[in-house]
């Protein structure tokens, strides 16, 4: 899609694009909470065959604002005998990783009309780094600190149990998550999120979810299950299982500190869905090239919304796992399936890659002279 090169004062569109992308993603992640709480309640109401929010504003649209005001004006309780600094730090730490990861998500691909019949490509992304997907994995694994520290510093047995569960769960499901991501890297031959999307251009048949059939489907399934477990959403919401642990790691939190934990969960859901769309569903790529007249970012947003709906759908459908079931499922089912699928997918990829037919693997770089071997010494 070609767009004119609008100028903003001394800067043109190409210079401004990363900041536009960053602003869009940050706004999405931060505004996700009010929008998603409303969306989740309405969807849950529909699925449970009840009304859902309908008191505040038309169709309950102002309900999130009422919730926000309530949380904001509640008393901020500091329990006695808590480690105060860590208690205050924990919500902030849990909010940090999704916000940082937002900078890595690519939103769209354009061609900018530079004038004089010349165009140049422009990707709407704040930071396209060479090992982007690894950074996303690293940030996902940092998110567990917020939960652990919140639970530990509260000085409450339910909080501590919730924190222990959450850390064990996060460590266990991170492996499956990484293996799922690795299969996408295997199919796209790149770790840069932008290149992963670009390798899937050309409609639904080129998307990774159908790549290396059926291993793309398996990998996407593994990723989806592990992502639900990583974000502590039902049916894997054991760290905050209200029937067993009051509210788990956030039992002692009140007012805005509680709200920030709440925000970080939804932010993680949004980022998890964005990464899933990038890895498996072709990012901004339209479902068929014929529909290319619809701008890429709209496709991206639509796919993300679809996945968030799936999150809510799963929550309203499946009962919560028991803790030992969760662990056994993670280690004895999900991980072996992911490992075997990864091996078979690698074999299939190697079999299909024909070196003479122009593979997508970049050519081998010029080799630096080895330092080992006695000719030179350190």
């Amino acid at each position: 899609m070609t767009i004119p090169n609008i100028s903003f004062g001394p800067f043109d569109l190409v210079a401004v694009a990363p900041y536009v992308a960053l602003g869009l993603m940050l706004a999405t992640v931060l505004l996700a909470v009010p929008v998603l709480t409303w969306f989740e309640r309405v969807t849950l109401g529909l699925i449970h065959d009840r009304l859902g929010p309908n008191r505040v504003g038309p169709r309950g649209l102002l309900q999130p604002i009422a919730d926000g005001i309530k949380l904001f004006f509640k008393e901020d309780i500091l329990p006695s005998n808590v480690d105060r600094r860590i208690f205050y730090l924990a919500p902030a730490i849990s909010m940090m990783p999704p916000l940082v990861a937002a900078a890595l998500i690519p939103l769209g691909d354009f061609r900018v009309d530079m004038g004089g019949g010349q165009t140049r490509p422009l990707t709407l992304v704040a930071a396209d780094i060479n090992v982007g997907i690894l950074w996303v994995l690293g940030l996902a694994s940092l998110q567990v600190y917020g939960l652990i520290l919140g639970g530990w510093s509260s000085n409450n047995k339910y909080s501590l149990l919730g924190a222990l569960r959450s850390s064990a769960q996060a460590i266990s499901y991170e492996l499956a998550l990484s293996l799922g991501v690795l299969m996408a890297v295997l199919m796209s031959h790149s770790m840069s999120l932008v290149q992963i999307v670009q390798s899937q251009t050309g409609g639904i048949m080129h998307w990774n979810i159908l790549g290396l059939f059926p291993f793309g489907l398996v990998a996407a399934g593994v990723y989806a299950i592990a992502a639900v477990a990583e974000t502590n959403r039902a049916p894997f919401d054991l760290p905050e299982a209200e029937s067993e642990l009051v509210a788990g790691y956030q039992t002692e939190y009140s007012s805005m500190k509680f709200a920030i934990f709440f925000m970080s969960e939804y932010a993680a859901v949004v980022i998890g869905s964005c990464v899933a769309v990038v890895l498996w569903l072709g990012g901004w790529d339209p479902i068929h090239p014929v529909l290319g007249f619809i701008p890429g970012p709209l496709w991206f947003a639509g796919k993300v919304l679809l996945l968030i709906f799936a999150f809510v759908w799963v929550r309203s459908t499946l009962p919560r796992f028991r803790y030992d079931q969760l662990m056994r499922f993670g280690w004895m089912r999900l991980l072996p399936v992911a490992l075997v699928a990864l091996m078979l997918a690698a074999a299939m990829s190697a079999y299909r890659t024909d070196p003479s037919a122009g593979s997508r693997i970049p050519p081998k770089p010029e080799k630096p002279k080895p330092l080992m071997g006695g000719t030179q010494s350190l």
Partner: protein
Amino acid sequence: MSFAVPTEHYLLLSAVLFCIGVAGVATKRNPIVVFMCIEIMLNAANLGFVALGRHFGDVGGQIYTMLIIAVAAGEVAIGLAIIVSLFRTRETIDLDEADLLKL
């Protein structure tokens, strides 16, 4: 080719961190903290490897670092398992108390 920050700076920083790690290992009696100090020392070595790898334009420094990270991961898994089983049998993990060469 000259760098904005010369390699010597990185090596000196690495030496300082290594010495801090040594001090921690020698003065602490909580095996978990001792472990953390060993991690500081390993990280100091990693910094030296990567800095020298950049200096000589060789990827080898980075590969060394990755091997060290892998070994450190294995070492932590074993070490923490030992600490947990030590705690189970003795109710304390003070290193001065663990002097029987058995659990």
